[in-house]
């Protein structure tokens, strides 16, 4: 990252301020808080409901974490399989791509129908919407080392496993983390959607209930919390990436 701390934060604050001002102006023009509450009212009502909101947010975070963990595990397994058994990869990759064309909107209610209102259907939906970028990032990452690195390791007498361990796995990490950052934002959306379709708690459920009660302000408050959770998780993966693969962000410029 370049720039100083205020240099990075100020533009974000400015954009948010402009958006909030536009919202405020629109809300005053509409003059109907049930239709479009002002930002101030949303914040105020969110604060009043903070205990309930915190409870639902925790539930959503749990679903997201569980689903994302399963997704990462599945992605590693599939990517290694595709990488190590090329024939299987040729058969599997088209199926994986096709799986992404299935509309989650249509499948999520079925998943709830099949697996009930517990954790399982939500974890499944989160996995469905997040594993694909992870698999693609990992497969490409595992190939990133290239044939000359393979030749070098082979010339040293390395086994396939040694090549994987010494060169290809670490080489795959930068792309894995890029994919992780993209996928983690989908994960929150996936969890909220699964809750929306059918659950007893979580931000998705909460939005559904408040929408039915015409509490637009509380729906928007929940939306804001979703965004906050996504941004936080994104920042967390970013920090994890700096910690695990510091070498992917060179400190010095390579000379001559």
């Amino acid at each position: 990252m370049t720039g100083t701390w205020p240099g990075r934060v100020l533009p974000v604050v400015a954009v948010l301020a402009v958006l909030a001002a536009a919202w405020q102006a629109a809300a005053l023009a509409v003059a109907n808080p049930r239709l479009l509450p002002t930002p101030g009212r949303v914040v105020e009502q969110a604060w009043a409901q903070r205990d309930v909101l915190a409870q639902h947010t925790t539930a959503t975070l749990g679903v997201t974490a569980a689903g994302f963990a399963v997704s990462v595990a599945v992605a590693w397994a599939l990517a290694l399989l595709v990488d190590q058994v090329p024939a299987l990869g040729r058969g599997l990759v088209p199926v994986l791509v096709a799986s992404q064309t299935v509309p989650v909107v249509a499948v999520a209610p079925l998943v709830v129908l099949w697996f009930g209102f517990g954790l399982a259907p939500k974890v499944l939906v989160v996995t469905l919407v997040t594993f694909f970028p992870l698999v693609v990032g990992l497969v490409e990452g595992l190939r990133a080392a290239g044939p000359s690195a393979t030749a070098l390791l082979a010339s040293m007498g390395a086994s396939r496993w040694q090549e994987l361990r010494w060169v290809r796995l670490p080489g795959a990490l930068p792309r894995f983390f890029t994919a992780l950052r993209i996928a983690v934002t989908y994960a929150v959306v996936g969890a909220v959607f699964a809750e929306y379709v059918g659950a007893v708690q979580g931000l998705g459920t909460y939005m559904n209930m408040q929408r039915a009660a015409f509490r637009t302000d509380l729906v928007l408050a929940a939306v804001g919390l979703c965004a906050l959770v996504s941004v936080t998780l994104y920042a967390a993966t970013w920090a994890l990436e700096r910690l695990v693969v510091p070498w992917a962000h060179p400190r010095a410029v390579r000379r001559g």
Partner: protein
Amino acid sequence: MADVLRVHDVHVTRPGARGALPVLGGVDLRVARGELVAVVGPSGCGKSTLLAVVAGLLRPDRGRVLVDGGEVTGPGRVALMPQDDLLLAWHTVLDNVGLGLRVQGVRRREARARARDVLDELGLAASADARPDELSGGMRQRVALARTVLQGRDVVLLDEPFGALDALTRLDAQRWLAATWAAHRWSGLLVTHDVGEAVTLADRVVRLSGRPAAVAQEVVVDDPRPRTPGVPDQRLTRTVLAGLGVGPGGADVPDTPDERASVAVPDEPASGSVRGGRGPAVPDEPASGSVRGGRGPAVPDEPARAGAGREGG
């Protein structure tokens, strides 16, 4: 002196777009202990294939490779220094240098100790704890050589070791390699495009013909050491260049007595504009490998390729 490496009548055919393509057509080579033999040849003549065979990565269709009298049937007998340095970005220089030992099953602590020793010997101790991205291109190649020799093999294969360096860095790296090699007397093959580099570094220069490659010429470099990188022995250089179809009678190489730059074997027709002319131009593309422009003779491409391609094939 006994030969530490013998390449005996090696034939390799590789599948091509239009059927089988003979790449090596009976290559014979020998490297005595402590000898550095340079292999030059027209671009695409099969130098890399030859290295792959010697490294045990590719089985020849016919012929044998012997290291220390034992036949090479797979990798692990010789150490390869590839064209790109291929240093692993996630390891320090120390761990990169020790990689070959780790692959051989040496424990990390011992691999590090031995890597530190070899870095000391080669004058690279100050870089031991740096990460590869903190090093210059010239330093990365030196570290790659340290990684290669630490594997403790009988033969070292250098595949265009300085091909990616700019002209000045390249001369510096050659000077360093010459001094280091003189001190350690490893045995090896040096594949290069640069006849000047071959003549200043090697004990013998072997020129391969175009495809299918065979040894077309062998020149013993009797130029006494120390030699000056960048100022190759003109008589030997011309002999090899003439064989490649470049030089008096072959193409337009200026006959000025004070030719100073090393003369590059032309690479790709596309890269072939004559640079620098005869003026004191500074080479402008660091990545373009061989020494161009400068004060010396720029080598025109087309006639050279035509001549080299026909001969001995």
